[in-house]
């Protein structure tokens, strides 16, 4: 959680706000509607069935809440290939991940967010190094989780790949928390420089707590050909229309069935083999949820005790 950059309310409202914050945020992106149990006014009069129904709703709500953790904590989900799965290994790996999280705050960010990473570097003069850029990819399960940051510095496009659980990382700051339309933004490499240029010393932007993660619906134009990848075949949502740039043949090719693969849209077994089933996810997240909650509270206490400066609200 990027708690360092959010406005804090009084501690008595904290828990309530956290719930809202979680739910509202994910509602915007995951298309999951959370059913809310109505608080019964007269608890003595409710029948058994009613009680049962309310219990069910509460249970579903808890489930939804756990499952929604998959967006922010994607790397806790293991490799879905059944050949590589082992329960004990996954458990040990999760334990190590939580141990690392207790020493460094790994905030919540997505592909499209602006992130700055401060890490120890034996090659740098001060033995510290900082890089800031837009996250164009977040990948990997477990301790292998990594992300790529991209920025334009001195007219030169630079990308750095970081391991999320690398113990040389001192801090990860989220400068701007937002999402883009795609899961990977590699097309920024073929886009004009202004679309991936961000000032290095940008101030963190604050969002009111409880607000949903905004989705930046920007459509990026591409530079003229040649490109690194045949983007017209990839079905990216965040690219501006490129048909005018393409030759007739290439345009025709991009509409071929073999590239669009319409049959894969409802290929259920493919979908299943790429995901971790609900039961497993609930097990994983219920295991880590408590520990994460503890860490968050501890961190909050530490921060309050150190300095209490009210940050200014921006944009």
């Amino acid at each position: 959680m990027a708690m360092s950059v959010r406005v804090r309310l009084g501690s008595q409202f904290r828990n309530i706000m956290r719930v809202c914050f979680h739910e509202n945020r994910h509602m915007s992106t995951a298309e999951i509607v959370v059913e809310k149990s109505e608080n019964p006014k007269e608890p003595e009069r409710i029948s058994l069935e009613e009680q049962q129904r309310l219990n069910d709703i509460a249970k579903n709500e808890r489930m939804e809440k756990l499952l929604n953790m998959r967006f922010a904590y994607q790397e806790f989900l293991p490799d879905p290939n059944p050949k590589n799965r082992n329960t004990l290994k996954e458990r040990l790996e999760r334990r190590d991940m939580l141990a690392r999280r207790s020493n460094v705050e790994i905030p919540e960010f997505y592909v499209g967010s602006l992130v700055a990473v401060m890490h120890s570097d034996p090659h740098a003069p001060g033995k510290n190094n900082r890089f800031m850029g837009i996250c164009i990819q977040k990948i990997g399960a477990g301790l292998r989780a990594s992300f790529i940051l991209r920025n334009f510095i001195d007219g030169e496009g630079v990308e750095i790949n970081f391991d999320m659980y690398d113990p040389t990382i001192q801090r990860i700051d989220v400068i701007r928390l937002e999402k883009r339309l795609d899961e990977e933004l590699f097309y920024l490499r073929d886009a004009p420089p202004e679309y991936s240029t961000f000032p290095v010393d940008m101030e963190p932007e604050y969002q009111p707590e409880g607000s949903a993660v905004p989705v930046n619906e920007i459509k990026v134009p591409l530079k003229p050909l040649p490109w690194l990848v045949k983007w017209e075949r990839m079905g990216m949502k965040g690219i501006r229309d490129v048909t005018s740039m393409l030759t007739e043949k290439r345009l025709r090719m991009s509409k071929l069935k073999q590239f669009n693969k319409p049959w894969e849209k409802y290929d259920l077994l493919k979908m299943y083999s790429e995901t971790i089933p609900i039961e497993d996810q609930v097990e994983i997240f219920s295991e880590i949820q408590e520990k994460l909650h503890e860490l968050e509270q501890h961190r909050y206490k530490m921060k309050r005790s150190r300095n209490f400066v009210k940050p200014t609200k921006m944009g």
Partner: protein
Amino acid sequence: MNLPMLCMQSRGLSTSSALSQVIRLTRLRVVDNSEIGKQAMAEGKPPYVFHVYNKMGVGYIGDRVMVAIKGEKKKGILVGLKQNQKKKVPKFDTNNLVLIEDNGSPIGTRIHVPIPHILRTLMKEKTHSKGADYTKLIAIASRFI
């Protein structure tokens, strides 16, 4: 768009490069302010590699290469690569070259793109007391990443 690119496109050849390795005949971008380098880049005739000074024949970051530039032979150091790098090492959008003389000192006086921090260590490792001194290259860099 230049002529070779147009030719390639018309013939339907793939111009995407899988590994983006620096090998012989790879075109590089000169990023220092040497006169010859500036001219070559301005004319649209960037230098190309015709020898890599290592056993593999593939140039990695900090490697010395021999390039053909404006009809001359020049040596240079690779200071930034397009190909995927190890974790925490920056990857650039272009293959960057700094031209050097035989004794290791750069021809230009300034590098106008960022160069990776790891190059400090690599250059120090390659410098020997009697051989060429490459640490001057670090001195003329404007910004490190």
